[in-house]
């Protein structure tokens, strides 16, 4: 799977990091999210889906192949 992050939409809530800490992290200076892994393995699927669902900025998308 491929994860897309629309960075300018991010509001630095940190919900994605709680849902999938192996895929998402936040910048120290402003809390904006970034991807640790753009193509995480199947193990991360549930966590990434959770992040997509809870992101309060609709900034995350799961592009399945």
């Amino acid at each position, binding site marked *: 799977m491929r994860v897309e992050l629309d960075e300018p939409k991010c509001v630095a809530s940190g919900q994605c990091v709680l849902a999938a800490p192996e895929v998402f992290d936040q910048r120290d200076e402003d*809390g904006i999210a970034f991807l640790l892994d753009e193509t995480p393995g199947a193990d991360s699927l549930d966590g990434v889906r959770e992040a997509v*669902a809870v992101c309060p900025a609709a900034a995350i998308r799961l592009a399945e192949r």
Partner: protein
Amino acid sequence: MKRIVVVGASAAGLAAAETLRREGYDGTLTLVGDEPHPPYDRPPLSKQVLAAEWPPERVRLRPPADLAALGLDQRLGVAATGMDVADQALRLADGSVLPYDGLVIATGVRPRRLPGEGAHVLRTLSDALTLRDRLRPGLRLVVVGAGFLGAEAAAVAWKLGARVTLLEPAPVPLAHAVGEEVGRVLSRAHLERGVDLRTGVTVTEVTEEGVRLGDGREVEADEVLVAVGSLPNTEWLAGSGLTVADGVVCDQYCAAAPGVYAAGDVARWHHPHFGVRMRIEHRTNAAEQGMAAARNLLNPEAAKPFAPVPYFWSDQYDLKIQAYGYLRGHDELAFVDGDLAEGHFVAAYRTGDRLAGALAVGMPPKTIRRWRQAVAAGASWKEVVG
């Protein structure tokens, strides 16, 4: 279960619909929404949309293809007008009747208004675009209500060069929500920029010239924005058999009746950890509760109590405010981290002997996460603050 209806096509309703599919529900899934648009997001309306930084398309919650993949029976631009838990059927404004096996109510809230004509409110995309088109340098804007919404709108209008007057009935804005000390810090942000924040001022009506105050005087304005709170959209549930009391009353599983759940701004549910019935108008709660309601609807025998750590954020000028927990009715507030004079800090809130919540302004994510964890763990005040 073969027929599930979700009423309200916004953050909570969409989260419920997506979760139903994700959990394997493959029956008919009807999404009813009275707005003509596919689900869109509200927080940017008082921020990037009002500031004309984003075109309106940018607020849609999902790309059309992702929505289509859910296989929804979408009824947009049609209001639900009534239901009856005994019949398990929903009535729509176009005359149709939808029988259901499961129902999720996510009809949100609408702005409270003041007597008089011609004032703006800010809840929908069209509200935001209408106000956006009026904002210009030199415009005299009166914002009634210095809550989060009023403060955000005032900040955007100020940035665009409007002359903003912010009228607030309380002595300190937001004191009931975040405490007096933090309310005062947030007030300073307005005053430092020359926004004319006046507290202890009640507005009784909107007039031709502007607004009339409780003492009979008038404040003149070219445009008026009324941001004085909201009312749950529950009128359509009259006679439904559900209990409505400032929101749809639910148990800790978000159930309002067997097979009927509520989520988002409209839901008043029993939060098991805080031990109170609460109704929260926060964006993350809408999504989380929509998910929880969907899961419990599909699997009532294994239902899980909905016990989130409430979270909200607000952007005002260059301030990013983030709060976790339940701050209302707190007994004590302490500044526990950061540097108040420099404008970045963490405030902790005590209710009883527990850390009930924390609010951060301009703090790094790791610090904020630490405080969230403490709130989630129900940490004792002694342990974390001393």
